[in-house]
C-alpha cells in the first residue's frame, strides 16, 4: 500500500513536472552578449542603442512595433485609431487605455499617473532627456481615469504614435523616479541602473559598462512567461569576439550587432553551433554630395555655405556620372555579406514606403564617361585626369575611420579614377566626425569636403521626420552654429512644399506615395544623395535558442518573453 502511494506520488509529480514545462522560469539562464557594454538601463538618459535594447527587457511602452512595421499593443489594451475613437477626429489627441490588472515588478499597480509622470520627466528641459523628440509637439498629458491617458498635441498630428510607442519611449514608475526629475535625473544612479518595470525581466544586479543580471519578473502579465528564469547581458570586446562566443564556443545564446566581415561570417557559420540573423530597417550607407563650395581659399564663414555653389558638383551630370561608376553589388560583397544589399533609395523600407527605384544598381562605366564628356569635362592634357576651363576634376572624399568604410573608399576611388577623376581620400575619427563640435573643421555637418560617406536611418517606420531633414531651413550654416541635418545644403522649394503636404496628410496610402516621391527627389532625380548599401543589423543566436524573430523597427529583443530553450 505504501509502495503504491509512493508510486502514485511519483507519477503525480511527473505529471506536474510535465505541465511545468511551459511555465515561467523553467528554461534556466539566457545569456546575451553585446559588443558594447550597457552603461545605463534608463533609455531617457542614454542615446546608445545598446542601453535602449537592454532596458527594453525591463521597461515597456504602451505599444511596440512588430517586424512588419505594424503597431502592436504592449501595455495598452489596443492601438488607438480614428476608427475606434482612440484618436480624436481633429487629430489633436490620442487616448491610451492600459490593460487591466497590470503590476510593476515590485507588485504595485501600473496607473495612468505613471505615464503622465514619464512624459513630464522627459519633457523637463533641465533633465537632458535624450528621447525628447518623442514628446515633441505634446501640449499636455493627462490621466482621464486610473487606467486612461490622454495625450493632447499643439497641432493636428497625422502620426500621433510617438509618445509611449517603441523602446525609445517606455513608461517609468512614478514612485521610483519621483525624486529624479530635472537636474537631479542623472544623480539617481540606483533607479537609472535598476529601473522597476513591467517587462518580462527585472534587473537584479548591474556592473556599469560590463554586465546586467536579470531575473524573470514575478508579476509579468502572462503567468507562463518568460521561459527563462534568469538572463545576463555581458558587454564589451568587439563584434568578432561576441560572434565567436555564440557561433564557435557556444558560451552565449545571443549576440547583438555582430557586424563582421563576410568571410568570417561564413567561417563561423560552418562551426554549426548557431546562425546569423539579419533585419533590414532603414539604415543606408550613402554618399552625400556637397552642393556648396568647400574650397579652403574662401574666407571662414563662407566655406560650404549657400553663398558659393559647388564648382564641380553643382552639375547634375557629374553627380550622376559618379553614381553610375559604382558597382554596389561588389561593395556589399566586400563589406557586409548577408548583412547588406545594394540600394538606390534613402527610404529602403518598410516595403510599402519604399520607392521602386533600382536604376543605379547596375554599374555603367561607359555611360558615366559619356556624361562627363557631355558636361564638358575632358582630359585635354593627357594626364588621365579630366579638366574643364583649366580646372582639374578633383574630389575630396571623406568618411570616418572604419575598416569597411576604408575598403569602400579604396574601391570607389578606383572606379572614379578609371572615370578620369582625381580622388583625394580622408578618414576622420568618428568621435570628431559625428561629434558636432562647431569649432572643428572635420564634422560631417561642416562638410569641408566634396563628397562624404556615412550611414543614417529613420528611427520610425513612418519617415516624415527623416525626410524633413532635407528642407532648405535645415542646412547647417555658421549662423546655426553648424547644426542641422540637411548636410548637402539641398534646397528645392518643391521639396519643402511636399514635406508640408506630407505633414498635413492623414491617409496612409497617400502618405506612402508622397514619401516615395520625396525619396526620388533627393536620390534619382537630383543625385544629391547617392545611396550605396541598405545595411541590416546582423545578430547571432545559438541553435539551442528558440523564438528569435528579428525586428528592425523596434528593439531586437521585442519578443524576448517568448524565447525558449530548444531541447
Amino acid at each position, binding site marked *: 500500500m505504501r509502495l503504491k502511494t509512493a508510486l502514485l506520488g511519483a507519477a503525480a509529480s511527473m505529471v506536474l513536472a510535465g505541465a511545468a514545462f511551459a511555465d515561467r522560469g523553467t528554461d534556466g539562464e539566457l545569456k546575451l552578449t553585446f559588443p558594447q557594454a550597457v552603461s545605463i538601463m534608463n533609455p531617457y538618459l542614454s*542615446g546608445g542603442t545598446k542601453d535602449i535594447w537592454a532596458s527594453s527587457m525591463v521597461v515597456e511602452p504602451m505599444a511596440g512595433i512588430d517586424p512588419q512595421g505594424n503597431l502592436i499593443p504592449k501595455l495598452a489594451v489596443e492601438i488607438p485609431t480614428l476608427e475606434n475613437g482612440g484618436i480624436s477626429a481633429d487629430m489633436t489627441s490620442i487616448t491610451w487605455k492600459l490593460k487591466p490588472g497590470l503590476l510593476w515588478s515590485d507588485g504595485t499597480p501600473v496607473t495612468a499617473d505613471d505615464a503622465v509622470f514619464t512624459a513630464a520627466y522627459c519633457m523637463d528641459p533641465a533633465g*537632458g532627456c535624450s528621447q525628447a523628440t518623442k514628446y515633441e509637439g505634446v501640449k499636455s498629458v493627462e490621466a482621464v481615469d486610473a487606467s486612461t491617458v490622454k495625450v493632447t498635441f499643439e497641432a493636428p498630428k497625422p502620426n500621433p504614435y510617438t509618445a509611449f510607442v517603441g523602446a525609445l519611449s517606455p513608461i517609468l514608475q512614478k514612485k521610483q523616479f519621483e525624486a529624479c526629475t530635472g537636474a537631479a535625473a542623472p544623480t539617481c544612479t540606483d533607479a537609472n541602473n535598476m529601473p522597476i518595470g513591467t517587462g518580462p525581466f527585472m534587473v537584479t544586479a548591474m556592473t556599469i559598462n560590463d554586465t546586467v543580471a536579470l531575473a524573470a519578473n514575478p508579476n509579468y502579465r502572462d503567468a507562463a512567461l518568460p521561459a527563462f528564469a534568469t538572463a545576463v547581458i555581458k558587454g564589451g570586446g568587439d563584434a568578432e569576439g561576441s560572434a565567436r*562566443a555564440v557561433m564557435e*564556443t557556444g558560451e552565449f545564446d545571443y549576440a547583438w550587432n555582430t557586424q563582421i566581415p563576410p568571410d568570417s561570417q561564413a567561417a563561423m557559420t560552418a562551426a554549426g553551433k548557431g546562425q546569423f540573423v539579419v533585419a533590414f530597417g532603414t539604415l543606408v550607407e550613402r554618399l552625400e554630395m556637397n552642393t556648396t563650395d568647400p574650397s579652403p581659399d574662401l574666407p571662414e564663414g563662407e566655406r560650404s555655405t549657400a553663398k558659393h555653389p559647388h564648382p564641380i558638383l553643382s552639375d547634375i551630370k557629374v553627380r550622376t556620372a559618379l553614381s553610375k561608376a559604382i558597382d554596389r553589388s561588389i561593395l556589399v560583397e566586400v563589406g557586409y555579406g548577408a548583412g547588406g544589399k545594394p540600394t538606390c533609395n534613402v527610404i529602403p523600407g518598410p516595403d510599402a514606403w519604399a520607392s521602386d527605384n533600382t536604376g543605379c544598381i547596375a554599374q555603367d562605366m561607359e555611360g558615366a564617361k559619356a556624361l562627363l564628356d557631355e558636361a564638358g569635362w575632358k582630359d585635354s592634357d593627357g594626364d588621365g585626369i579630366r579638366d574643364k576651363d583649366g580646372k582639374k576634376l578633383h574630389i575630396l572624399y571623406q568618411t570616418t575611420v572604419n575598416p569597411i568604410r576604408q575598403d569602400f573608399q579604396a574601391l570607389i576611388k578606383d572606379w572614379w579614377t578609371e572615370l578620369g577623376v582625381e580622388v583625394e581620400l580622408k578618414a576622420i575619427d568618428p568621435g570628431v566626425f559625428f561629434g558636432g563640435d562647431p569649432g572643428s573643421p572635420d564634422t560631417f555637418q561642416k562638410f569641408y569636403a566634396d563628397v562624404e560617406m556615412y550611414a543614417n536611418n529613420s528611427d520610425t517606420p513612418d519617415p516624415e521626420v527623416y525626410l524633413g531633414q532635407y528642407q532648405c531651413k535645415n542646412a547647417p550654416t555658421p549662423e546655426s552654429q553648424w547644426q542641422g541635418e540637411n548636410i548637402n545644403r539641398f534646397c528645392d522649394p518643391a521639396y519643402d512644399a511636399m514635406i508640408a503636404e506630407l505633414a498635413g496628410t492623414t491617409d496612409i496610402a497617400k502618405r506612402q506615395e508622397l514619401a516615395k516621391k520625396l525619396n526620388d527627389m533627393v536620390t534619382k532625380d537630383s543625385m544629391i544623395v547617392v545611396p550605396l548599401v541598405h545595411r541590416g543589423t546582423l545578430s547571432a543566436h545559438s541553435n539551442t535558442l528558440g523564438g528569435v524573430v528579428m525586428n528592425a523597427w523596434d528593439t531586437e529583443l521585442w519578443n524576448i518573453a517568448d524565447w525558449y530553450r530548444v531541447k
Partner: protein
Amino acid sequence: MLTFTLRRLLLAIPTLLAISLVIFLLVDLAPGSPMSEIPLTVPPDVRQRMIEAMGADQPVFVRYVLWLRQFFWVEPAQVINHWFGTDFAAGEQRILSWQSRSPVFTVIGQRLPQTLTVIGTAYLVGILIALPIGIYSAYRQYSVFDQLGTLFAMIGFSVPTFFSGTLFIIIFAVWLGWFPTKYDTMMEVTDWESFLKQLRQMALPVLTLGLANAATISRYMRSSMLENMVQDYVRTARAKGMREKTVVLKHVLRNSLIPVVTVIALGIPSIFGGAIITENLFGVNGIGAALILAIHASDLPMVQTLAFIFAVLIVVFNLIADILYGLLDPRIRYD
C-alpha cells in the same frame, strides 16, 4: 631617510597638481564630443540640452576647479562618511561619468577588484616565470637554454597581446574548448567548484599578460646576473670552496636582485592601470577597459579621474622604488 621621504612627498604635491591641469587640458582639447555616440536621429536642440545637463558647456577652468573640488573634497568626504557615518559634503555633486551618469568612483570600485586579481596574478606569474629563466640563462650563458630563453623573451616583447590573446582564444577556447573566452564578472567564488571555474576563466588573460611581463623581467634578471657573475667577490666565494649553488643563489642572486626589485616595483602602477587590450579582448571589466571605453565616448570626467589616479600611483611607486633601493643596498644613502 625620513627627511628624504618627506621632502619627496612634499615635492609631489605641486607635481601632481601640474599633472592634473595638463591632463585636464589635454583631454579637453582633444577632438571629440560626448554626443558622438548618440544616433543621428537625435536632433541638435536635444543634443544641446543633453550637453547642458552634463555641465559640459561650462568654460574649461570652471570645470577644472569644480573637478579639483570634487576630487579632493567631495569624494574623500564620501569615503569618510561611509566609514564613520558622518555627513560631510552632503548634497554636493560627486564626479559623474557622462557615459553612465553614475559616480566615477563607483565604477572604479566595481572594477578595481577584477583588475587586481587578473592583472595582479598575471604580474606574479610573469615574475615567477621570469626569475628562474633569467637566473639560469645567465648562469649558462650562450647555452641552448639561454638561446631558448632569448627567443622566448623576443617573442614576448614583439608579439602584441591582441595577437597572442586571439591566438590563445582560437587554440584553447575554440579548438580545444578548455577555457571560456568571456570573463564572467558576476561569478562569486563560494566553493571548490566555483574556484576552479574562476581559475579557468582567468587562465587565458593571465597567460597572455604573464608571457608579456615575463619577457621584460627575465631580460633584466639575466643582464643583472651576468654583471655580478664576473665580480671579484664571486671568485672569492668560489675560492673559499663554497658550493656552486650557494655562490649563485646566495651571493650572486641577492646582489643581482637589487635593480630587478626596482623594476618590479616600478611596474606595479601598471597593475592598477589594467591592461587595455587584454581586458577588452577577454571581457574582464577592469580599469583598462573602463579607460578605453571612456576615451571612445569622450567621457571627460572618467578619463580625467583615471588618468590622474595613474599619475598618483606612478609618483608614489617611484618613491617606493627609490626607498626600496636604499633599503636593499646599504651603500646608497639619501641623507
